């Protein structure tokens, strides 16, 4: 083969290799492109992953939001599926307050909020979320000290909205179940101590924050632990009637959030 022809052949072969490589690269890129993800259900349980107040000692751990995770939502979602017509996703979801996706989930759950800390930016995000129509259920915090911590951040969210006791006649207590009994739902400590309260939180309170139209935006379960009741639904020692009641409160809050 003459040198000139050989050079031409080499050039063509190189070009073919480059083109083939590019084509293969493109295919690989296409293969790895994320296809649109189908949402697994109308309702997705979202747990709020907040920061812990640096003055609070949460058993040496900083992840207070993880309490009861993931068994609480796992059991609760089964209950929703069994007892209502809500199309609920089987798995829960975790988001931080500043995650832009939070607006895709109009119901969020925050646990151990007696330890939480929301900075100004997070508080503003949560305020916007709630006023647009989002719903927040907080749970599992006890006593006056934790209340003060919770309230401190909550007041950054709504400086001008009072936290009030939810009236007996509020639809949140009747939308599916008529929840006329105010029984303190204990954490698992009850199994060991027989004590339904923690710290100085002897009296349970069902409190809330309302919007200008009188709609409940934040359901505050103080001095009780619905999360434990959900989590330990399969624990023979945990009182079954408390789990049932916790399911009912949770479902009522959820249906209220989906109707008001």
């Amino acid at each position, binding site marked *: 083969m003459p040198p000139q022809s050989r050079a031409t052949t080499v050039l063509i072969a190189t070009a073919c290799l480059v083109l083939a490589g590019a084509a293969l690269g493109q295919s690989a890129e296409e293969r790895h492109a994320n296809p649109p993800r189908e949402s697994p259900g*109308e309702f997705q349980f979202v747990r709020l992953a907040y920061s812990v107040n640096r003055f609070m000692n949460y058993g040496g751990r900083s992840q207070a939001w993880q309490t009861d995770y993931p068994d609480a939502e796992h059991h609760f979602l089964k209950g929703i599926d069994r007892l209502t*017509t809500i199309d609920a996703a089987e798995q829960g979801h975790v988001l931080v307050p500043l995650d832009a996706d939070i607006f*895709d989930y109009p119901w969020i759950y925050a646990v151990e909020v007696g330890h939480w800390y929301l900075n100004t930016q997070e508080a503003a995000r949560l305020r*916007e979320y709630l006023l647009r*129509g989002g719903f927040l259920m907080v749970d599992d915090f006890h006593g006056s000290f934790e209340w003060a911590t919770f309230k401190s951040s909550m007041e950054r969210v709504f400086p001008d909205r009072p936290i009030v006791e939810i009236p007996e006649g509020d639809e949140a207590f009747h*939308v*599916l179940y008529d929840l006329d009994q105010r029984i303190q739902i204990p954490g698992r400590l009850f199994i060991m101590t027989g004590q339904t309260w923690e710290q100085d939180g002897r009296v349970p309170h069902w409190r809330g924050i309302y919007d200008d139209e009188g709609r409940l935006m934040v359901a505050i379960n103080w001095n009780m632990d619905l999360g434990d009741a959900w989590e330990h639904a399969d624990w023979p020692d945990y009182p079954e009637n408390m789990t049932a009641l916790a399911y009912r409160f949770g479902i009522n809050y*959820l249906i209220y959030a989906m*109707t008001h």
Partner: protein
Amino acid sequence: MFEFFFKYPRADYARSDLVFTAEWPVAWLVFIAVVAVLGIALMLWRHRARAAPGQLAVVWVLQVTMLVIAGAVLMQPALRTEQLKMDDNAVALVADRSQSMAYGDGVRRIDTAIDNLEAAVSESAELTTLRYAFADAVDRLDDFAALEPDGAATNIAASLVGIIDGARSQSLAAVILASDGIDTSGALSTQQLTEIAALGVPVHTIGVGGDQMPDDIELSQVIVPDKTLPGTTVTARASIRHDREGTARIRVYDGDELLATEAVALPANTTMTTALVDIDLREVGYHHLQFSVDTGGDEPELRNNSRSALVNVQEQQFRALYFEGEPRWEYKFMRRAMDPNGDIRLVSLLRVSPNKYYRQGLETPEQLQDGFPTTRDELFGYDALIIGSIEAASFSEQQLELVHSFVSERGGSLLLLAGPNGLGNGGWGQSGIADLLPAMLPPRASDSFHRYKVPVRLTPQGADMQMLRLAQPGEDNRAAWSDLPAIANYQELGSLKPAASTLLDMQTTTGNQPLLVTQPFGRGHVYILATGGTWRWQMSLPLEDQRHEKFWQQLIRALVANAPPGISLTASGGSTERRLRAEFRDDAYRPVEGIAVSAVVSHEDGESFTVELPPSLDESGVFTANVPLGATGTWYFEAIAERDGEPLYTTRTSAYSESEEAEYFNIRRNSALLRRLSEATGGQYFDAGNLDGIDELLRYSTAGITEQIFRPVWDAPAIFLLLLLVKFGEWLLRRRWRTI
């Protein structure tokens, strides 16, 4: 040329029959023809040795042809024509004397009309001429000398019927009508044209005036609802007639208050431009809206730049029923979007668990306590019905029939929403109301509901709908739609039915799919919104962004406003006459029988009269009458239904009439109307100044007293030329074949 060869013009042949005038017995003619044909054949047979058979055949054909032509000439052919007996007939010359005939470029239209009418009969002097002038009524004239364009309205149909009917004592051969074609009583209806044509007199029309007026723009039409609710935005459709490119500005006043202003581009490629003007009406009561348009330039007629409309803003409560099969975000956010203190009560029934329904928006504690309505009275009390993510099987057969009747008979609006249990998944495509739906929904077995986020697009059809206007007045509505967040889910609809309109669509991975579709059915309308995920607009947009709320408020308002009330009165039509239509239905929307209906018609100045409304032959429970409105101003109408002399129902409406200004609108020549009139009656349309052939049309008019005339054609040069051609051809051929 034709006339040189055939002796008479082609048109004479067209309007005449060709007949033979010789009175010879037919049998003799046949006998002679047979003998001649056979004789020629025999003669040629004897010369068969001198020519080929083909040559003999050609010669035979040519000789027979010559014989046939000669025979035809001997039969004395002639044209038989029906022609007017000129002395015994009359022609009516009709001049339009309405105010629009005062326009003209140097010469007034009415003067052009008179000149053309006189010219039309100048060559038919033997005909008796009857002269008329008309506007909204007819006058018989001796001459047109003192005619002035002072008629405040034009009614061509009524005038023609009056003229032809009134001239029955004469033998009327034709009517020649000169007009600009502007009819303020409304366009000629097919019924009116049929009535005029049935009189059997051709109407020839002469169009006067220009069909363009480049220096003039005109506010041709303003369409605005005659009733609305307090605090709502009304969209007026203002149509501007223009003959050249430019810009204009529309202003809307309510008394002295400027309510809206809208700049409008007038493109070069059209003569009619329609603009949408949003008007906020807050106060209850009658609003006399004045619309005006101007370009800033000089115009020959300014009075056609403004129009008035009357809008009655009144409190009214609508009711919509929403039946949902599962708690979901769309339900929540739709309810939140509706103003709880507004004029639409959204009553909802939600299946929260397999055995429990949750009710909201109730008027009484008992409402819907037994579930979805089972009687006409209960369901038909709502104006709109929304069905969410719930299976068709959740309804009994009787309830599905009720839903069907709700749309087709009651005229209610039905909206179906997407969902895991809605539309195709819910079996609605195979349900008892499948024929109502604007789409052929997929079968239940195929899961057509998908929880993918997809963007939404406003379609050209949707762009015209007030209910889909999300932008603020003056802002771009398409832009307001294009930057909306994606919806949370969608459902496939299958193929759409022919009458369906797609108002919104969505861009899925498989291409564009309809999102909001609608079609009318019976007295009502059916909509499908193929998503349950518009709630993302609320959650994903800033709190102050009201597009989600606006979408649902306007959509549901459109649903309820489409539904006719059981008792209603409308006054529709043109400037000088209104058609009253009163409808009376009971609570179950069944037509009320055995009632007599009359209407009191009152002008704002106090003039009033009563008209009877006879029952419609086409619709039960409907009563109609045409009411002439003589004066400009607000007219009030009150229809009263009585049984045995006792009043049962009363209903009211109102309208603003511009009857005294009607002549200033549509001032361009309407040749199309004049052409239709001529074509329907067997006449012909002429442009002014070009009346060629009108004297012939009159002479041979089929109306009036006619006589038959016979004109010989045997001596037409074409016949003799043909004879010569045949004989010369035979001679040439025989010479070539050397048989001579």
